[in-house]
């Protein structure tokens, strides 16, 4: 018997040219709550997919409960007692809650036939573990993000697992539900079950974890017990930077006018009665849980949704955008949260991805003017120092950070008044992340009004002069960031 539930040595995983994991180690003892920390794009999600057997590593060894696996499959991982709550939840939208809760359990116990009675029992048992109430016959696609997350959690807790991996399990759920979850985790720990906990919420990880492993850019940078770590050290390991970053300071210039004003905006099942205003040169943060309505609010300003009531006033004039084209023509840009799904054309060239918003202006008669496009693209590749091989290569050849810069370039190529960034540094490596921060600050200083929507408290504090807190579809609080610290904002942003 091994005292470690899992031991990973020298694991490497490459995607094309991108080194997601470049030789990492991870050891988790039995009955330990282990926190895996690291900034966006450090390789956390990749290692989780390696442990669950979903990715096959390019090098390195995996040992679960003393047994070494050369080619771990998902089924083997499940049988060895590994359960994962994936960040993307991995639920089945087309099945009912009951089926979602029971199907993996029944599959792994090798059942061949469906029994409604057994499905029912499993589902009830699963829900009772975290005291969660939901209609078992509802299809999961009709649920809120928070409910989906609770389903993913309760499904995983059901197992007689030896290791439960939780990848950002609390991004959408309320404080009370987090408390329930933590109680369950402590109960598991007593039974000798290990938990690998991944979260960007500092207060949570410091509360629950016994041991920390910190990744940076696909490497280990720290491994040790929680008590040896303090917040300053933690930040140091996470970012790898000793210099304190200069937070953004907004200097109200004379004549800096209000660019955007939102008055009592409401949208059914989206948000209610939201009002705020934004001046030129400001960087406004919006934070809150996933599913709090922040994305819906931003996308209304960008013309994706139409508000049921309320006003959007741009440069003193009331506007109502029927579609994105109109919002764009009025100087509004939006970097969407899911880069690969909504932001980029992965199989098209870098050049086309950057220039797409400007094609209307790059024409000679009816034909496209390739020279104009080339000079436009070259300009922005240089301006944002995007690292590429050739502008004709496809988007797939780029790392997350450079890809995100291309999305930004697409919007900066237009003459914008308001730029909305939704989760701008998710899946972005550290270097590119600080490039994006600096760029955003520079843009604001040149008079652009910027909105950053983010989960990342540090990101909001570092880059925004003002922050709005959104909870259950309402803007509930507004603070100046200079009066806030991480802990306070973190507490403000959760729900009770």
């Amino acid at each position, binding site marked *: 018997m091994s005292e470690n539930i899992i031991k990973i040595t020298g694991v490497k995983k490459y995607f094309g040219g991108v080194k997601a994991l470049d030789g990492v180690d991870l050891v988790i003892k039995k009955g330990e709550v282990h926190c895996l920390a690291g900034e966006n794009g450090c390789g956390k999600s990749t290692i989780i997919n390696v442990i669950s057997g979903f990715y096959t590593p390019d090098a390195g060894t995996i040992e679960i409960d003393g047994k070494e696996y050369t080619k771990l499959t*998902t089924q083997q991982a499940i049988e060895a007692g590994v359960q994962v709550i994936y960040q993307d939840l991995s639920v*089945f*939208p*087309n099945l009912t809650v009951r089926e979602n809760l029971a199907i993996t359990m029944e599959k792994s116990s090798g059942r*061949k036939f469906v029994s409604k009675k057994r499905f029912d029992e499993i589902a009830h048992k699963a829900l009772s573990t975290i005291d969660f109430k939901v209609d078992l016959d509802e299809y999961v696609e*009709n649920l*809120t993000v928070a409910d989906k997350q609770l389903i993913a959690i309760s499904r995983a807790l059901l197992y007689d697992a030896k290791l439960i991996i939780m990848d950002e399990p609390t991004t959408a759920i309320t404080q009370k539900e987090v408390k329930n979850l933590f109680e369950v985790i402590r109960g598991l720990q007593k039974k000798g079950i290990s938990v690998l906990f991944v979260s960007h919420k500092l207060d949570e990880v410091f509360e629950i974890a016994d041991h920390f492993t910190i990744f940076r850019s696909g490497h280990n940078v720290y491994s040790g017990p929680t008590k040896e770590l303090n917040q300053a050290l933690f930040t140091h390991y996470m970012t790898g930077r000793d210099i304190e970053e200069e937070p953004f300071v907004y200097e109200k210039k004379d004549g800096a006018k209000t660019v955007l004003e939102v008055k009592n905006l409401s949208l059914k099942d989206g948000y209610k009665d939201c009002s705020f205003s934004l001046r030129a040169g400001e960087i406004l943060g919006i934070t809150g849980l996933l599913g*709090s309505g922040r994305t819906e609010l931003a996308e209304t300003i960008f013309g994706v949704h139409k508000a049921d009531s309320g006003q959007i006033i741009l440069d003193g004039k009331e506007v109502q955008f029927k579609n994105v084209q109109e919002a764009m023509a009025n100087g509004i840009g939006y970097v969407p949260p899911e880069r690969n799904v909504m932001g980029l054309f992965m199989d098209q060239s870098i050049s086309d991805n950057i220039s797409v918003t400007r094609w209307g202006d790059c024409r000679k008669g009816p034909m496209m003017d390739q020279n104009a496009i080339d000079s436009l693209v070259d300009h922005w590749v240089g301006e944002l120092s995007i690292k590429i091989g050739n502008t004709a290569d496809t988007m797939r050849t780029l790392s997350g950070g450079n890809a995100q810069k291309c999305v930004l370039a697409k919007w900066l190529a237009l003459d914008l008044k308001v730029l909305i960034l939704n989760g701008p540094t998710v899946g972005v490596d550290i270097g590119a992340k600080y490039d994006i921060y600096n760029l955003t600050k520079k843009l604001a200083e040149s008079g652009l009004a910027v909105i950053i929507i983010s989960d990342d408290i540090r990101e909001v504090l570092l880059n925004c002069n003002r922050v709005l807190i959104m909870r*259950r579809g*309402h803007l509930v609080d507004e603070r100046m960031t200079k009066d806030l610290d991480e802990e306070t904002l973190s507490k403000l942003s959760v729900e009770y």
Partner: protein
Amino acid sequence: MSFKRLTKKTEFYVALILIVFCLIIQARSGQFFTPNNIVDLLRSLTIPMMFAVGEMMVLISGGVDCSFPAIASLSMYFVCTKLDGAFSNPIPYFLVAMALGLCMGAVNGFIVAKYKFPAMIVTLGASSLWIGVMQGILGSSEYPLTFPLYQLGEAKILTGTNPVTGFSSNLPVHFGFAVVLVLIGWFILNKTMLGRGIYAVGGDEVAAARAGFNVFGIRMFIFCFSGAMAGFIGVCRASMMMTVNPNNMIGMEMDVIAACVLGGVSLVGGKGSVIGAILGTALMTLVSNSLILLGIPTVWARVFTGLIIIVGTGVSAVQEKTRKNTLHVAVSDQ
């Protein structure tokens, strides 16, 4: 299941439309609810209904199969011409045709599951291939039906006679086979983990793989099953028509796919039910069979088929669009 939930289902509306349609035909012609007309409808429903069950399973898994008429025709034509008189019992004919169909389905399944090519293009290509093999190598002329199958074709479940006109129609035993096949399809989809796996793969392939489902295996199974069923249905069709016609099933794939979608089966996978597929098929069959009763000239038949496909799929497309645009934020009342 509550009534409210029932009204959210496409099947509910298809059934409603079907009933209204029947009543309209009855009102206009007075000939709808007569025993021979009902038997005629059930008879013409037999083959499309069986195809629909196979197709529906492929659609639920997120694929599509355009090659089943080709597979059905080739397996049927092979056993009926090459094995003519080889057996005195109809069962071996069915078994050999099913085995042939299974092999052809396996080719589809392998290419789709291994290379992840669009199933429509792959099965269109395969369809061309099998039709070519049949017409180019085996020949494409009508052939007399082998005796055991002919005998089977004469077997009937019941006869419906119109008390007024005296016209009568027979319900062949094949309708019974169809009912059995439908039940098997229903059982696999709803009562086995394999069936749940088919829905899971169609809903989210990555999540299904993470849950331990063998995605490759499930895709292989579906195409093999659809192929084997096609072989069976091909022989059924020949025995029902009492002649071996290699060409009269070709082109059915599109009507069957349309019927499934009409009945609420999603073309992107994950959704659909046996009852929906059958209701959709019934609606399509009813429309094309009842134009005469409604006094509409037969030259308009295709136009009506086209309209019903467009209207039916249009309604579910608009519903799907609305569903996708529905937001899911739990806005509090404060």
